[in-house]
């Protein structure tokens, strides 16, 4: 299977000013991602692990400090001409986390969906067809965003993203602002779009169960690094990295009663993080050697950043 989008060694840090000292917050510390054709790859992690930063770097909202991005086998330079930038965005579209603020409240849905048509010079009939694909009635076009429910708004955001028929969709927690009762509908829509448009998708989420349901492969991120990567089913059913195990145990499960996880600490600060395994301070299996251990171990079709699997 060929790859659609490849990122190698992505690093990104943000400046934080404390008085006259400038600290570097290292949001991405060398991340490799490979998105294959017609695949949904989920990036799972807690807030502050760098998953949104990764997505924004891939969407070119932020530019990486170090590392390279390849789209359809072609290297994407950090500096692009306007035409190349437009071409990149036509191929890589983003679905935002919060549909309530991603739509301009003063515009009708019609003009919101006409924007990509104008910018990318698309066929106007595509609007109605796309609206049908996201399972909304045609009269939605005449409405304003506030007249729609959260789930309907998110469908409009998705419709806007698939209008230019991109090769890659970047979905930033597309269901986290939605109610449980409509979450499943949006996830099923993403699965349908993958089939119908053979689009590849990077889906960022903190919900391991949703990731298992929707994706082909999963990457688990922690403190700006990928700590585990593998096929969705086997990763969730048999997690290898202690952090993935913790994430799985923390998910609520009504079938399991009287289970205790206790206090398990919190993620480290990303300002001047120490070398070695970032999960070490919270890890029940931590050893002295972990303080130096940084490599990603390959095990068949899975990768894990943990000394136990050397």
């Amino acid at each position, binding site marked *: 299977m060929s790859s659609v989008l490849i990122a190698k060694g992505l690093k990104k840090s943000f400046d934080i000013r404390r008085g006259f000292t400038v600290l570097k917050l290292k949001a991405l510390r060398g991340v490799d991602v490979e998105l294959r054709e017609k695949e949904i790859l989920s990036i799972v992690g*807690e*807030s502050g692990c760098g998953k949104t930063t990764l997505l924004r770097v891939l969407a070119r909202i932020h530019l990486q400090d170090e590392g390279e991005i390849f789209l359809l086998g072609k290297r994407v330079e950090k500096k692009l001409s306007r035409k190349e930038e437009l071409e990149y965005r036509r191929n890589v579209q983003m679905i935002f986390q919060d549909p309530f603020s991603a739509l301009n409240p003063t515009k009708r849905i019609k003009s919101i969906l006409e924007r990509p048509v104008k910018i990318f010079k698309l066929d106007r009939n595509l609007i109605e067809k796309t609206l049908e694909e996201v399972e909304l009635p045609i009269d939605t076009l005449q409405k304003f965003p506030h007249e729609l*429910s*959260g*789930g*309907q708004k998110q469908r409009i955001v998705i419709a806007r993203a698939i209008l230019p028929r991109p090769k890659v969709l970047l979905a930033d927690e597309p269901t986290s602002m939605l*109610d*449980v*009762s*409509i*979450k*499943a*509908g*949006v*996830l*099923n829509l993403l699965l349908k779009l993958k089939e119908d448009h053979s689009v590849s998708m990077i889906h960022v989420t*903190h*919900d*391991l*169960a*949703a990731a*298992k*349901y929707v994706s082909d492969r999963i990457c688990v991120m922690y403190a700006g690094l990928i700590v585990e990567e593998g096929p969705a*089913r086997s990763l*969730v059913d048999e997690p290898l990295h202690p952090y993935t195990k*913790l*994430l*799985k*145990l*923390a*998910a*609520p*499960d*009504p*079938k*399991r*009663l009287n*289970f*205790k*996880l*206790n*206090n*398990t600490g*919190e993620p480290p600060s990303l300002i001047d993080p120490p070398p070695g395994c970032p999960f070490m301070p919270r890890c029940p299996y931590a050893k002295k050697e972990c303080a130096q251990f940084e490599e990603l171990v390959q095990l068949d079709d899975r990768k894990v950043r943990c000394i136990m699997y050397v």
Partner: protein
Amino acid sequence: MKVMDVLQVQNLNAGYMFKKKKVWAVRNVSLNVGKEDFLGIAGESGCGKTTLVMAILRLLKSPGFVESGKVIFDGVDLYQLSKEELDRLRWKQFSYVPQSSMNSLNPVLNIRDQMMDVILRHRSMTKQEALQLIVDMLQLVGIPPERVKSYPHQLSGGMRQRVVIAMSLLLSPKLVIFDEPTTALDVVVQRSIIEKIFELQLQKRFSAIFVTHDISLLFEITKHLAIMYAGEIVEYGPTREVYEEPLHPYTVGLIESLPSIYGELKEYKSIPGRLPDLSQSIAGCSFYERCRSRMDVCRLEHPGLKEVKPGRWVACHLY
């Protein structure tokens, strides 16, 4: 039975004024919370959960209003009390843990001073005794004593939420109401907060109400479960029974829409549609538009909450 109840809500109607129209967010809600009971209230956003809680605590401010109904706490109707009498009950007899701990702590006071404030207002204690109580309470929720002088911004989201929980328990109230205490938190932190609440409830023996949109959290810790839809309680019963055999089609849908991390992948379904307009009066069942098993009678006649099996209440014409 009646004497045992810590909280009784009778036919509460509340809502908001919006463009001179009344929007009914809480419609004819009755419920009771027994001694050491743990009631979970679940429903999607906009179903009136928070309005219900605010109305119970008499915290609903304009444009919100309470039209009718009684809230009887420990034998006293809260809406008959004067402001001073009510103030005396707050913190001491019942307390409230709001949704966003970021906004509920005072950013310019350290946590010791904020907690001290609560104690000194309600109890005659020396500062020394109060400080001991604060340290003990913080330790109980898992915050080391050396953090008492921290300001809210120096704590992480999970720790702030723990501080608010510690604060709500300072004066050993009879009833604690948690309004989505974990919504803004990560899964792992959420898990530890939920466990903490559960553990404290067993230890301190207070009654609790836990309001959330994420029904999966409630199955593990609550004793009773109430499902709210469009301002009404549509189902009520012991938690395990509701989970194993949900009666109302809305509850069935909610449970089906939960993804499971264990076992086989099954397709999980959503409930299409949205909440009805709460500014209109609803003649039939409020869930009619979205219901899979609707009948003709559902459109015409409003289903009342009935006890269909011992302890199981449901508002649906199917039963």
